[in-house]
Structure formats: C-alpha cells, structure tokens
C-alpha cells in the first residue's frame, strides 16, 4: 500500500498521519468517526464533513499545473495534502519536499505512482486532478466511484461524450466536482461578468475569446528513450532544457499508465510532459489548453447554459516542421439558438492585440464594449458610445498584494473546499455541468476544424445533425482497462 512509501524526510506515511492527527487536535479523527455512521450508500469514502473538519486531499498529476495547484491547496487553512500521485516518480523528491511549502506544518505528503492507490485510501476526501486532458474524465469518475470529491483541471474532459459522463457520475455519486476555470472565483472577473450580465453595456450580441499565446515549433523526435548526452527543449524558443528522458529516467515512469485510455504507443519525448497538449490522443490544442478559461468567461458573460447550435472553424498549423497535430492558429465561430455569437481566436504566431488583452475576452453590446484580462484575472474595462468613453472597470490595484490570506489568493480552491465541507455542489462557482458546457466549446471547435465544415449541433442529444464523421469525434476509443462506464447504476 502506498502509505508505506517513505516521504522525502524518511518518515513513513502511517507515522506521519498519526503525528499530524495529534497535532490537529483530533479534528480529522472526528470526521472519520462520524463519517462511517452518517454516510449513506453508495459513497465509500469519509462521510459528510463539518464546517471545521480538515479536508484531506490528494494531488494527481504534480508536474507543472498540478504542482501549482497542490501548493495552493496546501496553504489553505485546515486542508491537508496527504498524497502526491504521478506516473513520473522522478518528480517525487522535489514535490514532496517542496521548498516553497516548508512553513506549512501539515504539508508532509506521501507519494504514489498509481492513482488507483489514491482511490483506495479512505482518508482522502477529495482529489485534485491535473493530469493530461485524456485522463481527466476517467480519473474523475474513478474518484467519484471511490466516494471522493474532485477538483479537476480544465478542460474538464477530453471529449464531449466523456464530459457528459462526468456530469452523470457526479449526480449519481452525489459528490462535489469543481472545474479549474478559476476566473469564476476571481472577484474582478466576477464583477465584470455581473456588469455585463446586468446590461452594463446594453444588449450583448457577441463575445470574443482570445488565446494569443506564442507557441514555437516543438520539432519532431524519434520514438524511444533519449540517448545520454542528448538535450531536449519543449520548443524552439524555450529558454531551458527538459530532463533527459533516457532509459534510467524512464525506469521510474509508468508510461503505460500515462497513456491510459489512449492507444498504446512507444514512448516519445514530444508525447509526454507538456507537449502532449499538441497531440489529439491526449490534448486539445491551445483552444483546449489556455483556451477553456476564455471560453468559460465568454459563455458565462453571455449567460448561456446550453450548447451552441452552429459551429465553424478555420485554421491550420504554421509554426514549422513538428510532430504537432493540433492547429496553432484557429478561428472558431459559435452561434447559439437565439443568434448570439461567440468568436474564439487562437494564435500561436506573432500577432497584434485587439484593443485589450491578448489572453482575455471582449463583449460587444448595444451601448458599449468590455475587455477582461484573463492573465491577471484582476483587470477589466468598459467603454461606451461613439467616443469610446471609459466606464466602470478595474485596473488591478484593488487586488491584494504581497502576503495575503490564501483563501483570497486561492479563491477557487477555497470555494471548492467550502463546497466539500458543506457537501453542497450548488456552492461551487464552476461545477461539473458548467465545466462540461465550457469544455465542449473547444471540443466542438476542434471537431469543426478536423472535419473541415460547418456543423449543426443538437445540444439536447449532444450529437451533430446528419454528420456521422463529426459524431465519431465526440468520443474516442478507450483502451481496454481504461474504459469510461456508459452508465452509472
């Protein structure tokens, strides 16, 4: 069992739990004791948590994004990151002994390589899923079946179909599932959206999402481990190099588990850490990487709790010879049933801005327009009339600086933890259904790009009209042993 694995400082997990439990004045223990008695089937994890109960989490996927998210959770009051999990055990020592968390007394995580061991651990209330996209749905559903709450990175799913399965599973197992589109919990963005939704710029007929993020060529490499002395950069403009993924390194990587639902293929450095984003088996391109944040804000501002009716995409890959399969330049257009338009622009090349942020949103209304900066999540601005006069907005100075309470700095994580304690998904700022609607947008845009034609989507059935080829791309082939259940009984 994973708990026996030693942490970086040499104490075993079991010892540590005991020590932390004592230090925490029995709060976690109380939760444990009550849980078994109060909790109704079919959940199998800990029971309903009290307002003061420690929430015990595990982080699945801890390299880049996962590393940051786990740091945020570790700093929240009365939250314990008990376990770190990654198929790449090479990451363990540094992540377990995270130097930025030395002042957090409860941060003494164990490490496991197989996420199924996390699911087995009854102490764990919730999991943070920051794996590659193709694992999001399966890991979420496994966690829900194991009675755990889930914080899952965006896009919540790798396909539309599995996004729906996540919604069904969350309802079936009655757990809290938050999607990591954290602008939902950022005060400035919330203010901006409230302003837009309440008619601040008049009737809004169009929104635009921008993902103008420089992406240089990732090149192309042969399958197999790297040779000694070889270096590898994530892309042509990367400042630094990645670790040498040689045979010794890969001996501590469970690549088969990394592949999970995707087809079995040999190891390739470009189909591994980070650059998986640019291969359809695992990622969804930049529209489905940075993009979901801005898709989410666009849909949120338009107040659309539905799928678009029509979808068109045009784009291509222009950054030079590479193994990349996803477009680096993509314009996707979405029309909702009432005619409202959502435009999305993804550009990896050199480009201008559009009067506001390069990563952000624009809303167009009958009285004015608004931009929202998606990078800081702290700035927005409205403009009015023919003279483009400045209206309400935020310049970021109202945001807390320096040492701030983690609950403010990590509002989205705190919101999740609050909902977990209350056992109430309705408290979430971005629950699994919101995440599904949002994540479906880049998926639909990518499908229109891949089939090369305008699509008409039946949002109720979540199927295209008269387009079998496009329908096929609403789901994937799951590798044996990594299937997602078709229903939850």
């Amino acid at each position, binding site marked *: 069992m994973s708990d026996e694995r030693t942490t970086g400082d040499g104490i075993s997990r079991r010892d540590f739990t005991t020590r932390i439990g004592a230090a925490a004045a029995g709060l976690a223990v109380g939760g444990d004791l009550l849980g078994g008695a109060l909790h109704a089937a079919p959940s199998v994890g800990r029971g309903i948590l009290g307002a003061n109960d420690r929430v015990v989490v595990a982080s699945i996927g801890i390299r880049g994004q996962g590393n940051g998210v786990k740091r945020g959770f570790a700093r929240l009051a009365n939250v314990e990151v008990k376990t770190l999990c990654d198929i790449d055990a090479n990451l363990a020592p540094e992540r377990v002994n995270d130097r930025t968390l030395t002042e957090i007394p409860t941060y003494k995580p164990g490490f496991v390589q197989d996420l199924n061991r996390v699911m087995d651990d009854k102490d764990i209330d919730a999991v943070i899923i920051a794996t590659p996209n193709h694992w999001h749905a399966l890991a979420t559903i496994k966690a829900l079946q194991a009675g755990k709450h889930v914080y899952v990175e965006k896009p919540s799913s790798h396909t539309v179909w599995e996004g729906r399965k996540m919604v069904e599973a969350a309802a079936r197992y009655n757990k809290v599932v938050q999607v990591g589109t954290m602008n939902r919990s950022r005060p400035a963005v919330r203010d901006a959206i409230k302003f837009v939704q309440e008619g601040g710029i008049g009737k809004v007929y169009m929104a635009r999402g921008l993902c103008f993020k420089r992406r240089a060529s990732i090149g192309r490499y042969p399958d197999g481990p790297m040779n000694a002395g070889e270096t590898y950069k994530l892309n042509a403009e990367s400042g630094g190099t990645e670790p040498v993924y040689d045979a010794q390194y890969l001996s501590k990587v469970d690549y088969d588990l990394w592949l999970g639902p995707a087809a079995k293929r040999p190891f390739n450095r470009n189909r591994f850490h980070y650059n998986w984003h640019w291969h359809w088996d695992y990622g969804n391109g930049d529209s489905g990487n940075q993009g979901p944040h801005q898709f989410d804000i666009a849909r949120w501002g338009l107040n659309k709790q539905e799928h678009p009716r029509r979808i068109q995409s045009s784009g291509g890959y222009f950054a030079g010879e590479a193994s990349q399969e996803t477009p680096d330049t993509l314009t996707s257009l979405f029309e909702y049933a009432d005619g409202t338009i959502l435009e999305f622009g993804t550009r990896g*090349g050199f480009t*201008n801005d559009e009067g506001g942020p390069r990563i952000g949103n624009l809303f*167009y209304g009958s009285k004015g327009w608004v931009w929202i900066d998606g990078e800081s999540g702290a700035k927005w601005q409205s403009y009015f009339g023919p003279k483009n006069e400045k209206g309400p907005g935020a310049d970021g100075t109202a945001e807390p600086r320096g040492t701030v309470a983690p609950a403010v700095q990590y509002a989205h994580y705190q919101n999740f933890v609050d909902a977990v304690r209350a056992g109430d998904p309705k408290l979430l700022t971005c629950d699994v259904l919101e995440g599904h609607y949002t994540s479906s947008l880049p998926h639909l845009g990518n499908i229109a790009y891949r089939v090369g034609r305008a699509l008409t989507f039946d949002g109720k059935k979540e199927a295209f009209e008269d387009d079998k080829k496009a329908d096929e791309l609403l789901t994937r082939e799951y590798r044996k042993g990594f299937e997602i259940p078709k229903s939850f009984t």
Partner: protein
Amino acid sequence: MDRRDFLMSTAVLTAGAAVRGFASPSDTVRIAVVGCGGRGSSHVNAWSSMPNVEVVALCDVDESHIAAKLKMLETKGKPKPATYVDFRKLLEDRSIDAVSLATPNHWHTLQTIWACQAGKDVYVEKPCSHNVFESQQIVAAARKYDRIVQQGSQSRSSPALQEAVKRMVDGELGEVYMARGLCYKWRDTIGHTPVSAVPAGVDYDLWTGPAPKREFTKNRFHYNWHWMWDTGNGDLGNQGIHEVDIARWGLGVTHPTKVSAIGGKFMFDDDQETPNTMTASFEFDVKGVRKMMTFEVRHWISPHEAGINGEKPGNTIGNQFYGSKGYLVIDNYNKYYSFMGKDQLPGPGATAKDEHWANFIGAVRSRKRADLTAEIEEGALSCNLMHLANISYRVGRTLHWDAKTMTCVGDADANKMLTRAYRAPFVVPKNV
C-alpha cells in the same frame, strides 16, 4: 430602343473600330460619369481635376444628381457635359472614350459589359460584380472587346501598400500564412420606410434595372440599397470589399478552397436584409500550402485592432498579415506598419496616397492592361470571396469551392445564389 436594336448598334460601333488611339499624353481622354450620387461626386471631381481629361457626359436616373454635378463642374470652370438618364443612349456617343461607373452594385457588371461592347474603357466602382456569375462575365467582356477595365479599389495604387505587398512577396515577414480584414464601421438603424411615390425626376424602372421590380421605398433607394440583397452586398461588399481585396493581394491567393461565414443582424428591427455583423473565414491552397483569411464586419461599438486609427475613436478599417517573422498592419487605404519578431520591434512602414485615377488614365493611353493596378480580373477574384462569404452566411454552411467548375461542391442552394434572375431587358449575357 429594344435590346436587339441596342446590341446591333453596338456591333456596328465595334465593327467600325470606334476605338481611338491615344498617341500622346496631351490627347484628351473623354470620360462619362455614370451614377452621380455620393461616390459619383468623387468621380466627377477626380476626373475634372486631371490634366487632359474631360468629363464630357453625366448619366443618372435621378435628375437632381445630375443638376448637382453640373453645378460642380460649372464652379470649377469646366465645359458643360452632355447629360443622360439612360446609359444606353450615352453609349451611342462615339466620342466618349471611357465610362466611370458609380451606380449601385447590381448595375456594375451589366453596364461594364455594355460599355465594353460599345468599345469604351471602364472604371467601375467596387464591387465590380453583384454575384459570382457576373464576375466571370465582366472579365470575359473585358477580354473579348480588349478594353481597359479598372475596379475602383484604390489602395492597389498606393505606393505604400505596393511596398508592403512587395516586402511580403520578398519574404521579409517570413512565410505569410494568414491575413485579416476589418470593417468595423458605425451603421445606425435605417428604420422602416413605407411604400411611397417615386420622387419626381427619378426613373425608378431604370434604377431597378436587372433587379426584380418592387414598389418604391426610400430605404430601397439611394445609399440604403447597400443593405438589400437585390441591389447591394451588405457592408462586406461595400466598405469591406476594399479590405477583402487588400487581404487577397497581400496573401497572394486567388480562389479559395473553403469559405465559412457566421453573423447576424443585431440590435435593430428595420428594413435591412444584410447582416450587420459577420465573420468570414477563407482557406486557400497555394501549391499545397494552406493560407487563411479571416474577415470581420461589425456595425457598432468595437475596439480598434493593431493600432489602426490610433487613439481616435470610431471606425476600424484595415488589414493584418501574419508571417513567421512578424506581422504587418494596413491602416485604412494608404498606410502600413509592421512589427518584427518575438519582441515585436517596429519594422518597415510607409504612408503614401494612391494615384488610382491617374493609373486608369495612364492605361487608357498606353492601351496596356498590365499597367492597371486593379485590372478587372483582380477585382472580380476579390469580389468572389465577398460573394461566397455572403452565400455561406445565407445558407449557413461551409462552402467547398471548386475553381475549375466555379461551383460549390454538393451545394445546390449555394450554387443557385451564384447568379440571379435578370429582369429583361437588363440581362447579363451568358455569352458576352
């Protein structure tokens, strides 16, 4: 005079070698301005300001337009031109060298073809065609009658834009893979106008020309015809066609492989038929390399992009070109600037006013269509992009364009919209 007589008379004219030769720059080019409304004023003013060019005739279906232009020429101390209501009559004047067309869009091609048949050179406002079929016929007529035919896309004659395109052709921007065109132009509601009497002094039947005859309303007439499919092509085919043309020019592409558009008419309940907001995407295949174009039409409040129009609020009219080494911006008609590399350091730029009118007159004298900067075939190709975008918007589908057959693959609805039902005798001939 019926149509048969007209064709016969033009046949006689061309057979009689009506074409004058322009031996020297001092020979006067005798030009007629047809359509004397807003844009026609610019034509009259431009031609009458040039040395050795004389506006010898004015033609308009609205007498009041003619009166205003006569006044303009009189004020400038120019000789009084002949005046016509019916363009066909004007063509009988063998002393006219060229016609300058600033009529509504639905008349452009037919008038150009008639003028070519009558042995005259043509300066025709953009868009030179009202549909794809006309784009083909206008070029065919120019070729058959060997005329000098220029489309009024004046940026083609801007030395600054010519320099910008040359830099791109020379590879200074690296591989240019995408162009963007912007037409963000304030367009307030046109409201509803009831059916009313045709104003005195207006030949509405002649104005209607090839379009179906409908009852007169003010919104169907001067200027607002742009927003009715019978006569106009929306703002994409009004302001936008300039930027479509520049985008196609800079990208170095001709026919698209795919065209998609999405949009709508937002905010207003009025007589307008064309969308006021539209985004169109075009894909091209240049010897196996994909090139893309996106075009946006917005009618209301929108931010500027890429520094176009500077800090000045209002319209945003321009283009961007995206290359592997940087991006280049066209600001309105006569200005470009660029930003290079990861740090977006300022690159080359220039501003220089076009000499489009002079370019036409120069080609009329030289008899070399290669001297034209916006020879009609270029104009027609650009117009087709605009027409296809409008069709894609109207049918709600991606069009797969086959340049060989000049049809949309497997799309009967779209193909129907490549031409129109012509009202006799105002028929663009299948055989020019």
